[in-house]
């Protein structure tokens, strides 16, 4: 090994790979930063908040969303990698859904953005499927005993979006105002919305 005993930091490793690819003419300077910036812009969980708000205010859109999540998200322009087959899981007064990826950290990028750190952490990936109601309660989701708790593990190519319950007291709110109260955590099922 030519690198000696010290282990390169991740930042040094990326820089070395980028430099080697540039030296070999495989990429140009700035290619990686450009890809990262466009991913950051394209994969934004606020898109999912717009889907949820529209479903809350437009019953025909909600029906389309539950019947074919991929197509209904694409109607609003939200499609692309990790959004090829989206299934929407509706929370109701008697069923609470939450989503995990125990083996890696798959999520629906076009509507949920790239996964946040807590979603990728071993604690969440390991524990949620083992004690669904208990772990959700620990995260602040207190559910009545008669509410069924269903965890979905993202183990294949379907990507999931939770449609959270619309909070009471928002009956006359506009779609735009509703979108502003939807959180990424509520669309993964680890938070309840209140106003």
């Amino acid at each position, binding site marked *: 090994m030519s*690198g000696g005993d010290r282990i390169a930091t991740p930042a040094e490793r990326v820089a070395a790979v*980028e430099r080697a690819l540039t030296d070999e003419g495989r990429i140009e300077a700035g290619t990686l930063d450009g890809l990262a910036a466009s991913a950051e812009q394209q994969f934004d969980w606020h898109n999912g908040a717009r889907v949820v708000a529209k479903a809350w205010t437009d019953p025909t859109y909600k029906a389309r969303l539950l019947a074919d999540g991929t197509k209904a998200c694409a109607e609003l322009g939200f499609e692309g990698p990790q959004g090829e087959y989206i299934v929407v899981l509706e929370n109701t007064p008697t069923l609470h859904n939450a989503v995990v990826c125990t083996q890696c950290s798959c999520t629906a990028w076009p509507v949920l953005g790239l*996964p946040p750190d807590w979603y990728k952490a071993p604690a969440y990936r390991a524990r949620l499927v083992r004690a669904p109601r208990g772990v959700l309660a620990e995260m602040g989701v207190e559910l009545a005993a008669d509410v069924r708790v269903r965890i979905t593990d993202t183990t294949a190519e379907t990507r999931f979006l939770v449609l959270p319950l619309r909070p009471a007291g928002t009956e006359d709110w506009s779609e735009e105002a509703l979108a502003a109260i939807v959180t990424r955590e509520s669309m993964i099922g680890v938070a309840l919305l209140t106003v």
Partner: protein
Amino acid sequence: MNGIHDLGGMEGFGAIDVESDEPTFHEGWQGRAFALNMLGIGILRAYNADEYRHAVERMAPAHYLGASYYERMLTGATTLLVEKGVLDLATLESIAGATIPLARAVADVVEDEIVEPAAASFAVGDRVRVRGVQFRGHTRVPRYVRGKTGVVLHVAPAFGHPDTSAHGFAARSEPTYHVEFEATELWGEDDLAGESVVVDLWESYLEAPQ
């Protein structure tokens, strides 16, 4: 493989800390690591997404658990770029002036180890059992559902079968099934009644219950 990545059901990891409104990338190198993997899969086409997932799973377990998500992504991508001959490890280490840790080598799996579908397709409402296959290569069956019985909630379209795709075997596609397992079935504890876990499983991972 029964690897460190297959975390579902493990205990001892402590609290889940949610950072509210967290940024997409916390540091610049994380965005570049993400971009590198997109480049490797989508632009250079040096490897596919299943090979990528398997490369991350092949990381030494202590390295895997100690690494952040983007360090794991970087390690998987770098490992494959070296294994596929796109980059040379000695050159990378010479540029970095330090050691670059890669994942361990692929197990010597052969195509005959890939199981064929056990039954004709299943339908919503069918009871199904997860086959007890112990494949040493890449697979998407979590350990915690092997041998367990559940009910099909949804049938998804056919997608590329990861066990073959990750090892360069003849490509095949199969529908995947969203199978709901009662938590009482998974963990054997009565106080988990009213809780369930849905796992999305390729057809050849399943069989009709005996």
